[in-house]
């Protein structure tokens, strides 16, 4: 099933520049309903308060990391089916394995291109 262009997307990153980049690419790809969170805790509270169809998260963040956010999402009955894409500078094999074990939907290594993000979106929502 292709991604619904109206679905609400949550971009989680402590860097405002990265949030803006991802938001911009998503807009160009036809997804205008994008919200932002600065860390895992902020993201979890938004995810529990509203209905989101997709989460794009960084790994390294203060307060709560992306991997902990992913585990919290997968452990929550109401949130566990939300696809989570990790976009991170953590490019070690161990990181990728850890994310897979935690239930990540796909994984992008920074720096990345719009084409890579689009390709991952298609894979997640096919």
């Amino acid at each position, binding site marked *: 099933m292709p991604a619904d262009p109206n679905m609400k997307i949550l971009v989680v990153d402590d860097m405002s*520049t990265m949030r803006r980049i991802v938001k911009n*690419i998503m807009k*160009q790809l036809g997804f205008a309903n994008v919200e932002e969170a600065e860390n895992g805790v902020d993201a979890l509270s938004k995810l529990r308060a509203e209905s989101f169809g997709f989460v794009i998260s960084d790994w390294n963040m203060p307060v709560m990391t992306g991997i902990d956010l992913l585990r919290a999402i997968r452990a929550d009955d109401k949130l566990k089916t939300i696809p989570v894409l990790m976009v991170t500078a953590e490019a070690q094999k161990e990181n990728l394995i850890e994310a897979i074990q935690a239930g990540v939907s796909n994984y992008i290594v920074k720096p990345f291109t719009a084409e890579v993000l689009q390709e991952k979106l298609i894979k997640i929502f096919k």
Partner: protein
Amino acid sequence: MLNGNVKLYDELGELARYLESAMRKMTEVGAPMVANSAQLPQATAHLLDLNTMTEEGTLEVMRLTEIIQDNRARAAKELASVVSTLEAVDCRTLAARLGKTAQDLMHDEKHLIDIMTALSFQDLVAQRVKKLVTIVEDVQCKLVELVVVFGLNQEGTAPETQGKAGEMLRQLEASKSTAIKQDLADELLSEFGFK
């Protein structure tokens, strides 16, 4: 038994002398090292400034790129509308030419997205800087431990202001506090007859 004790006292004496000499050397080397470490918090602050500066620059490039993207989207919409009007009145050659221009604009859209994604360098730089700051802070903690363990005398040890590190820090500080803005530079230039 007596010979054994004498030998033991000799060895203990030698060990004591070695320890005393090591402590003296430690104090000689350690004191300037501790003085130098006074520069570390300042250096760390400058590293963090680097993050702020690249972030501000990146956000400005993003703002301008987004303006161009919006303008380009409006122009593309307008072009598409003109192309359909021209096709409706059978001006096919003109419609084809405008259609080609619209396609060229589409290529620029990709370039603009590439500019946005290329700006992710700022995030990578910021992450590395944060790691470097953590390392510097850790080194500083270790130096403090050294002061405590070896009782290195910090009093009377003036913070290191000579040498390369001191000079670099002075330059960095000056760039923050005494750097002039363009309007002041223009004012000074005009005072010297530049128009």
